[in-house]
């Protein structure tokens, strides 16, 4: 059986489309556990900020450290599951890269907040949260529309809360924005 140039081009296009879909699926699945994890952390930490403001700083710090450690572990596990010739050393390296990447972003946030000096905790919380949701949108431009949509919905919910919710703002942020991230993470896991 011989095929002509047009048929060959169509076949290559079909191969590219199938491969792109698989790549997108894998990226979504890599992102999903991080999104669920940090959605849960937002939910818990913001709820504490609302219900027990005195404990807020300690709880945010503890949960952020817990989240960073869990992110390292997730990165380590993901690498172990897919890497050919994976060794404990390469898995450790991958885990550290994820954690370092996270710490770089957190360091930027701390530096930005020091420069911008928000006047209250609401502004600080909104800035930090929106930074991540915009990051999801930016990454989504490359990886896939679902990630972009999750970032967009979470950003709109944050802005709605900042401008429209005046009492129990942190509880709103925890439940709605944290919930949106967790739901988004579950959505990313679906085909």
């Amino acid at each position, binding site marked *: *059986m*011989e*095929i*002509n*140039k047009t048929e*060959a*081009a169509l*076949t*290559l296009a*079909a*191969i*590219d489309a*199938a*491969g*792109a*879909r*698989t*790549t997108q*699926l*894998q990226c979504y699945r890599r992102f999903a556990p991080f999104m669920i994890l940090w959605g849960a952390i937002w939910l818990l930490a913001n709820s504490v900020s609302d219900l027990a403001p005195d404990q807020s700083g300690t709880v945010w710090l503890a949960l952020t450290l817990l989240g960073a450690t869990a992110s390292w572990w997730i990165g380590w596990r993901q690498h172990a*599951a*897919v*890497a*050919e010739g*994976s060794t404990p050393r390469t898995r450790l390296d991958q885990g550290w890269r994820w954690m370092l990447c996270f710490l770089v972003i957190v360091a930027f946030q701390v530096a930005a907040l020091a420069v911008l000096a928000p006047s209250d905790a609401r502004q600080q919380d909104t800035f930090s949260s929106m930074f991540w949701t915009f990051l999801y949108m930016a990454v989504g431009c490359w990886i896939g529309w679902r990630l972009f949509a999750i970032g967009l919905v979470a950003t709109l919910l944050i802005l709605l809360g900042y401008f429209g919710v005046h009492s129990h703002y942190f509880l709103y942020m925890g439940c709605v924005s944290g919930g949106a991230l967790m739901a988004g993470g579950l959505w990313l896991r679906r*085909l």
Partner: protein
Amino acid sequence: MNELIHQPTRLKIMATLNALRGAAKLEFTELRKLLSVTDGNLGTHLATLENAGYVEIEKTFVGKKPCTRVSLTRAGRRAFDTHIQYLRDIIHASG
């Protein structure tokens, strides 16, 4: 031309599995959804590819639930790469 790979459904199976990272595997049900084919159709084509040594089918249990996971073999990856090169050569040869 590798006519075994060139069949449309098998070509999509190979392309999908070829895009998996490293040693990653895809569950049978996920592959079925990605390709929009029936269980029977997918099973038949996978058996053909397995007999040719292009795919590896691993059957395990997650709890009490059976789980079938599929991946490309090294021979499958090589055959697929060769087929893609064959298609590219046709395009380039035609000018």
